[in-house]
C-alpha cells in the first residue's frame, strides 16, 4: 500500500500544483520584469507619423499570414492554427478545466459538450504531430530546430495526449492517467517561464512594441 495512483493524484492536486503554480508565477514575473527593465535607447527622432493603435493592431494582425506564405508553408500555418486554437478551446472550455481555473482565479464560464472537446482534442493532437513531422522533414526547419524546440513540443503534447487517454480510459487506469495528466500540466507550468513557451505572455509585449515602433517609423506592420 505504498505509492498508489491515488497518492500520486492527491500529491498532484495538492503540493504538486501549488509548487508548479508558484514556480510559474515567480518565473513569469521575473521574466517580464527583466524584459521591461532592460529598456530601450531613447529615440531622438520625431515620429514619422502619429499612428495611434498600431501596437494593439499588430497584436492581432501578426496572427495572420503574410500574403502567399500560407500557400508556401501550409503545414506550418494550418497545423499551427489548428493546434493553437485547439489548445485554447480544450484548456478553456472543458468543464473540469473550468473548475480548476475557478479554484485558482475565482472566475468561471459555461463549458462545451465533451463530444466537441473530444473532436477538438483529436484535431489538436493530429496537428501537433503534423507540425513535428514537418519540422523533421523540412531541411531548413530541421537545421533551425534545437533541443528547446523539441522539448517545448514534448511538454505541450504530453498534457494533451494524457488528457485524451485519461478521458477515454485508455492504456492506464483512469486514476493513474489523471494523476499523470495533472503532473504533465504542472511540468508545462514550471517550464513556461524558462522555455520558448513564455511566448504565451511575451507575445503581446513583443507585438505591441514592434507595432508601435513601426508605427513611429512609418513602416507597415
Amino acid at each position, binding site marked *: *500500500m505504498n505509492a*498508489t495512483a*491515488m*497518492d500520486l*493524484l*492527491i500529491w498532484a*492536486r*495538492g*503540493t504538486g*500544483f*501549488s509548487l508548479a*503554480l*508558484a*514556480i*510559474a*508565477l*515567480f*518565473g*513569469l*514575473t*521575473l*521574466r*517580464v*520584469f*527583466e524584459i521591461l*527593465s*532592460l529598456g530601450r535607447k531613447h529615440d531622438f527622432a520625431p515620429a514619422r507619423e502619429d499612428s495611434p493603435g498600431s501596437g494593439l493592431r499588430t497584436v492581432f494582425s501578426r496572427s495572420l499570414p503574410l500574403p502567399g506564405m500560407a500557400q508556401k508553408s501550409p503545414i506550418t500555418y494550418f497545423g499551427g492554427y489548428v493546434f493553437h486554437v485547439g489548445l485554447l478551446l480544450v484548456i478553456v472550455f472543458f*468543464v*473540469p*478545466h473550468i*473548475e*480548476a481555473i*475557478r*479554484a*485558482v482565479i475565482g472566475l468561471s464560464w*459555461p*463549458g*462545451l*459538450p*465533451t*463530444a466537441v472537446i473530444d473532436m477538438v482534442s483529436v484535431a489538436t493532437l493530429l496537428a501537433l504531430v503534423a507540425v513535428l513531422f514537418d519540422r523533421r522533414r523540412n531541411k531548413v526547419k530541421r537545421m533551425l530546430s534545437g533541443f528547446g524546440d523539441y522539448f517545448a513540443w514534448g511538454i505541450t503534447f504530453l498534457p494533451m495526449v494524457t488528457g485524451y487517454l485519461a478521458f477515454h*480510459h485508455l492504456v492506464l*487506469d*483512469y*486514476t493513474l492517467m*489523471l494523476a499523470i495528466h495533472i503532473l504533465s500540466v504542472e511540468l508545462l507550468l514550471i517550464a513556461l517561464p524558462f522555455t520558448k513557451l513564455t511566448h504565451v505572455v511575451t507575445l503581446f509585449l513583443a507585438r505591441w512594441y514592434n507595432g508601435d515602433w513601426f508605427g513611429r517609423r512609418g513602416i507597415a506592420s
Partner: protein
Amino acid sequence: MNTVETLGEILRRRGVSRRGFMKYCATTASLMALPPAMAETIAARLEKASRPSVIWLSFQECTGCTESMTRSHTPTLEGLILETVSLDYHHTLQAASGEGAEQAREQAMTANAGKYLLVVDGSIPMGDPGYSTIAGMSNVDMLLDAAKNAAAVIAVGSCAAFGGIPKAAPNPTGAVAVSSLVKDKPVINVPGCPPIPVVITGVLAHFLTFGGLPELDHLGRPRVFYGESIHDRCYRRPFYDRGLFAETFDDEGARKGWCLFKLGCKGPVTYNACATTKWNQGTSFPIQSGHGCIGCSEPDFWDLGGFYQALSMPTQKLGKVAGAAIAGGTIAGIAMAAHNRSMKASAKQSHERVSTDELEKGE
C-alpha cells in the same frame, strides 16, 4: 457448534426458502459476471459447503461495516450467510466477552488451523500499540497471530483495506492497512465505507463455491466487484457528456438530475459496484439520491480534497502561494534589472573610443 452441518442445512433451519436461496445465488452469479447457468453451480456448491470457520477481528473502526451487514430492515440473505459463517469470533456480534471470548478465538484458531478465514475490519495503529488493544493485546500482535494460520485474510472496509479514516492526514495513530502487515497470506481487500453487503458475502461465496480467491486488481480488490468506475456506470453520465451540471444542491440542474461533478462527485476515480448493485436491496445509491460519490472505496479518500470540491480542482489554498510567488518574482526581477543595468553601465564605461587614425595605423 456442529461443524458437519452444511451451509444449505443451516440456511434451511433458519427458514430460508429454496426460492430465496436461488435468487441470492443468481444475484451473486451476475454480480461476479458469471453466466446465469453458474447460479446452479454456486447453489449446489454453497448448499454442500460445510460451514467454514471465520474469525472476525475489529481494530480501529466504527462498526459501520458490521452495521452495513446486519442492520438492514429485513434480514437479508447476505446477512444470514454472514451470520452463519462468521460466528466463531466477532467482537461486536458475539455474546461472550473478556477471557471467554479470547478463549473461543484461540480454540477456533487451533481447531481450524490453516483452514479458517480471517476477516478484519479497522486499521492497525503502529504509532503506539496502546492506542488500540483487545484483552491487553495490541492490534498488530493479534492480527499477526491470527493471520499465521489463516487460509486467507479478507480486509473488510476501507480502514482495513487502505487505512481509511484513522490514516487520514496527519494520521495521528500511525494507522496502516492489513496488507502492509500481512505479507505471507493472500489478502483480499473489500473496501468501502462501508462496503456493499452483497460484495462482502460475494467474496465469501466465491471462496466457498470455488475454494479459492477471486481475481484481484492492483489494489487487491476483487475485479468482479471493483472492475468499473462509478462514473462509467452512472446513469447521470449522459449529462456529464452533454455538459449539463448541477451547480448547487437545489438548483434546476439538481432537480433535473444533472451530473454532480461540479458538486464534488468523485465517481470518475472510484471503483465500486454501487451504481449497478445499489444499496438497500437495490433501492438507490448516493448519486441517485442527489449526492456526489465521495470515493469511499479508494485509498486515502479522506485526503482527496473536500467532498464538495470538484475532482479537477487543486486542493490547497493558492492565494498566499500565488502572492508570495509574484512578490518573489518582483524582487528577483528588480535584482535582475539592477544587475543588468550595472552590467550595461560598466560595459559603457570600459568602452574605449577608437579614432580612424588609430585604426589606419593598423593597431
